């Protein structure tokens, strides 16, 4: 794709001076946006910048308050609720959009089932599903229930769903947020293939290296305003990041702080096994940041849940400050200063129907009890503190959490966990769906915690994050802890080799 080519082509779909308000809160201000045939267009911006909103407007899931949309140069009003699919316009939602009771095949064909003489052609649909999943390199069983899938697999199903449709334009709202490097690669290959056939993509992401790697043009939004649209090759990640946050960013990762070798061991896991995880042992020192890396489904989440008591252990024990922690008792862990932040924001992390304060204090209500009842003033205070500390930005203090932007939800969740005042913090995917600016804040926050003497375990599928943040990295594979890397060993190649099973430490 060359610059000359771009000018010759007329846009497939474009937005002219589009604005959007929810009630009386305006979130998009007169934004222009266009997509050329066969291009991959990155849409970037901070959390809450309005990316998802814009993408929803362009795919018919929201209607603009003012401004107009053009399809092939003609003004259109897109039909609501995904009916724009008929026009070849498809959106992969930022939050999952799958029904738990359906199987993979059923989800893939939902709303456009194939029938023969009025009867569902189940054989055909299954075969087709298998074909698409294979193309994406996904091992998901086409008959598995969505409810039984891991988060990453659900994302792959979403992607398969979009790719399987005859699309002219595909909007992908942070499709790689929960994917590992490998899966991301496969996805990119498919995207490039479709681009060659003339499909256009809009790719929303916070991973700027992916923007550089894949996309042809970049549009930056900030606070609902259009900032810049430019060919990717004229920019670099730092320039994009700067455009997004409107200031220069210092280095993303803080200086690492190695704990002393004779520092107290605060958490010790001995021979822990669950249904899937086998015989995992490791120690965590005071002030240490320990990373857990591995492929999707390697059992990292499962081991963390077993440690904290959210999941039953089959064998093994967990010592906190040298004394054993009871199994299956999450609250005892919390009382002893152990905290866990889930990666499943929507399903396990936050009450989407409630406000921010109710969520923030849910796990630590005991701190707000005065004479046996909850003190609203004390809760408000905590909320104000958390907003400052974690830079939670909302335009409406009483918004339901479900309507906050993804990044702010993530910050709120972190704030909620930190409210318990933990000394050992396990964070599962700390920066899922978070913009660079916020990422930097969170990284510095984690480093600060460690310096103050807290110990942190970071479970992450983003290799740079683990590498940039942790002083030691554990690598998991198929339920086993296959390697514990330190110092110079902490690099992408080595981690990858352990994760893929090409190397293994004798334990």
């Amino acid at each position: 794709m060359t610059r000359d080519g771009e000018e010759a082509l007329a846009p497939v779909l474009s937005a002219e001076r589009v604005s959007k308000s929810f009630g009386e809160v305006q979130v998009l201000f007169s934004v222009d946006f266009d997509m050329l045939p066969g291009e991959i267009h990155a849409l970037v911006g901070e959390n809450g910048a309005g990316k998802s909103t814009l993408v929803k407007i362009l795919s018919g899931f929201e209607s603009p308050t003012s401004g107009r949309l053009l399809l092939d140069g003609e003004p259109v009003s897109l039909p609501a609720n995904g009916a724009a699919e008929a026009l070849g316009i498809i959106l992969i939602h930022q939050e999952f959009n799958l029904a738990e009771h359906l199987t993979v095949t059923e989800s893939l064909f939902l709303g456009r089932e194939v029938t023969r003489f009025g009867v569902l052609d189940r054989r055909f649909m299954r075969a087709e599903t298998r074909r698409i999943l294979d193309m994406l390199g996904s091992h998901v069983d086409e008959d598995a229930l969505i409810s039984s899938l891991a988060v990453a697999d659900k994302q792959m199903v979403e992607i398969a769903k979009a790719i399987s449709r005859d699309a002219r334009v595909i909007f992908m709202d942070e499709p790689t947020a929960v994917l590992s490097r490998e899966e991301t690669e496969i996805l990119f290959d498919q995207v490039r293939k479709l681009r060659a056939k003339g499909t256009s993509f809009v790719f929303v992401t916070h991973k700027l290296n992916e923007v550089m790697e894949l996309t042809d043009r970049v549009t930056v939004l900030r606070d609902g305003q259009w900032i810049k649209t430019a060919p990717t090759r004229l920019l670099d990640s730092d320039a994009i990041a700067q455009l997004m946050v409107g200031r220069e960013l210092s280095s993303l990762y803080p200086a690492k702080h190695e704990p002393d070798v004779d520092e107290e061991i605060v958490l010790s896991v001995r021979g822990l096994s669950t249904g899937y995880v086998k015989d995992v042992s490791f120690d965590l020192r005071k002030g240490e940041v320990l990373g857990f890396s591995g492929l999707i489904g390697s059992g990292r989440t499962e081991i963390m849940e077993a440690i904290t008591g959210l999941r039953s252990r089959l064998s093994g024990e967990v010592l906190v400050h040298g004394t054993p922690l009871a199994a299956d008792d999450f609250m005892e862990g919390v009382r002893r200063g152990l905290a866990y932040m889930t990666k499943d924001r929507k399903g396990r992390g936050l009450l989407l129907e409630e406000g921010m304060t109710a969520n923030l204090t849910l796990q630590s209500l005991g701190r707000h009890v005065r004479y046996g009842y909850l003190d609203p003033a004390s809760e408000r205070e905590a909320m104000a503190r958390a907003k400052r500390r974690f830079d939670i930005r909302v335009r409406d203090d009483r918004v339901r959490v479900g309507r906050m932007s993804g990044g702010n939800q993530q910050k709120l969740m972190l704030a909620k966990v930190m409210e318990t005042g933990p000394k050992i913090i396990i964070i599962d995917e700390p920066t899922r769906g978070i913009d660079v600016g916020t990422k930097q804040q969170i990284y510095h926050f984690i480093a600060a915690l460690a310096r103050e003497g807290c110990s942190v375990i970071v479970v992450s599928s983003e290799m740079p994050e683990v590498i940039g943040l942790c002083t030691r990295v554990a690598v998991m594979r198929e339920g086993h802890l296959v390697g514990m890397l330190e110092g110079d060993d902490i690099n992408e190649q080595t981690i990858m080799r352990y994760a893929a099973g090409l190397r293994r430490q004798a334990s």
Partner: protein
Amino acid sequence: MSINSGGEATTIRRRSWRDVDLRAVAPFAALALLIIIGALVNPNFISITNLANVATRSAFIAIIAVGATFVISSGDLDLSVGSMVAFVASLMILFMNSGVIADPGLMLAAAMVLTVVIGSLCGLANGLITTVGRIEPFIATLGTMGIYRGLTTWLSQGGAITLRSSELQSLYRPAYFGSVLGLPVPILVILIVTAIAAFILYRTRYGRHVTAVGSSRDVARYSGIAVNRVRTIAFIIQGLCVAIAVLLYVPRLGSTSATTGILWELQAITAVVVGGTALKGGAGRVWGTICGAFILELVGNIMLLSNFISEYLIGAIQGSIIIIAMLVQRSLTRKA
């Protein structure tokens, strides 16, 4: 990554097999257990006549519960079915008593068509109040339950409405008491209705949409499914099933009263849930529902045939058995 893919796929398949199939089998296991208990309690129990009696008389609840499976799968609830039976049956008999058509055969046919139409309209009313009026189905159908029951009481002036023409009566009687190839008509009707329902639920686009709507309204809407239409149609199917139940009910006693069908809604819902369909919507199990209806009817039958239970305690034992049946079902699903 590709190396372990084979292993992963099989475990997943095994897991979903457990999830799906055993839960579907559990009600049938409970049914088998009950039949064994019944045979121990009274030797007459296992006779063809008795079992046929039980199956036959379960027809009303079974057929209504098939409709309820649709409504419940789509995430709604219909409390009005019991009084709808009374209302539709009253109108059917009143029509036949009106004598507007002289020929009995024609009259009967017309009455049956009318019944089906009225049933569907009642269902439609429920559906529209719930979806367009956006009222919780529990409350909406509690309201229409009062309305249908009230109208029936008013039509019958509190008494009974009885089919007057004995010619029509004897013409219509076989629809309940007759049998085809040795199979009582009601049992045949149950099987046909259930087979059609299973086909619709599992093999058609509409059925798929019912499951999706019950599982998540938002996902369904975003997939371009007309959620309110799917829900309304489920209510219409429920109304249709009620009408079919009425077609069997009227020839049995040839009369209705304001008390016809009282509490049938709870029985139908119980049959659906005992059959393995979750009340919060999602997956519907039509054959399980039928099995649930048999179970309910059998429990009563066994109790009556046993000689050691005080008539005062029957309700208590019935309640306990339902709870025990559900516990058995749970433990079966968990263990295996």
